[in-house]
């Protein structure tokens, strides 16, 4: 068995005393998996990704990435798409590509340019002139063009049209390799579930239910989308 890409051991995080967002959270990601991290609003999905990316510091517990304790060092293994854009809108797409190239040794410019071309995005355009959906596409392209070990995509398809959604999902499949893993959070479960190996339903800062996506469909005779609606019925 090869080393897990990610191990979260008894993670805790609260923004306000006595109100834990993550509570003794354990989570392991093996290599070569595409994992859907699914859960109702406010269940702690984005907080978890921010902790792994190092944007937040856990109150207790430990995060290990590719066998190394979370640090500056582990950031180079992680390609993270945050829920909100973090780029300067003054840049052009071309400038963003140079920025990524400079910043990340594993960035593959050719792949990025091919994807921009496929989605009809002009690299000369200024980011601020792009529509919301196109901005999201550009960010996702940059994140997916790195040769990382762990991709963390926080709501990658929420704002984009269905055709681009298909393209993005096929990019994730095409990018698939045995050494890397992808964590995707989304509310559009039906769209992504055929792409997943595993799923985890998160609720109140813990894993509520998890397993092999396709086996679960078979066992319950339901899609993950239907199962989610049942488990989290309001």
């Amino acid at each position, binding site marked *: 068995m090869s080393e897990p890409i990610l191990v979260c051991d008894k993670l805790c995080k609260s923004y306000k005393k006595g109100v834990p967002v993550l509570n003794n959270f354990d989570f392991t990601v093996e290599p070569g998996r595409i994992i859907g991290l699914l859960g109702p609003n406010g269940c702690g999905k984005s907080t978890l990704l921010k902790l792994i990316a190092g944007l937040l510091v856990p109150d207790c517990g430990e995060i290990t990435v590719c066998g190394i304790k979370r640090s500056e060092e582990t950031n180079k293994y992680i390609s993270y798409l945050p829920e909100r854009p973090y780029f300067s809108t003054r840049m052009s797409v071309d400038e963003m590509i140079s920025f990524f190239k400079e910043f990340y040794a594993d960035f593959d410019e050719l792949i990025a340019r091919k994807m921009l071309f496929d989605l009809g995005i002009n690299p000369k355009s200024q980011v601020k002139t792009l529509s919301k959906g196109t901005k999201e596409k550009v960010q996702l392209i940059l994140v997916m063009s790195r040769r990382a070990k762990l991709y963390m995509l926080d709501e990658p398809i929420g704002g984009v049209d269905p055709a681009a959604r*298909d393209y993005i999902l*096929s990019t994730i499949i095409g990018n698939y390799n045995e050494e890397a893993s992808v964590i995707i959070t989304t509310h559009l479960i039906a769209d992504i579930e*055929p*792409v997943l190996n595993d799923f985890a339903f998160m609720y109140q800062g813990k894993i509520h239910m998890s397993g092999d996506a*396709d086996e679960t*469909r078979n066992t319950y005779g339901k899609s993950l989308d239907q199962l989610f609606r049942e488990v989290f019925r309001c």
Partner: protein
Amino acid sequence: MSWRFDPGSSVSGQIAYSLRIKILTGEYPSGSQFPTVRSLALELGVNPNTVQKALSVLEGEGLLESRTTVGRFVTEDSDVLSSALTAFKKSFLESVFSKADEIGITKNDFESFLSNKEG
């Protein structure tokens, strides 16, 4: 691109089912090389492991043969193909008739439908 899957069952089962039909109807001819896991995964918009699982099922049935380093091929064994076709037709008809039975379509309905169609 990605097709719509029936939500009520495993995706790998549904892929095996549709590839089986394509093999039995000769869309993938006997003896021909079969597409790779990755190309099928991209075409269908599903996880490569899921495709892998579906292909293992078809290998188990003898419809596909794996040749190391070269890839997968549709079997050239005509006995395997014809008995798989017979079995497939039987199970397909069984499900049609059991559904028909559920909504009260009788043998007479079938007969008059067929004679009208032929006439």
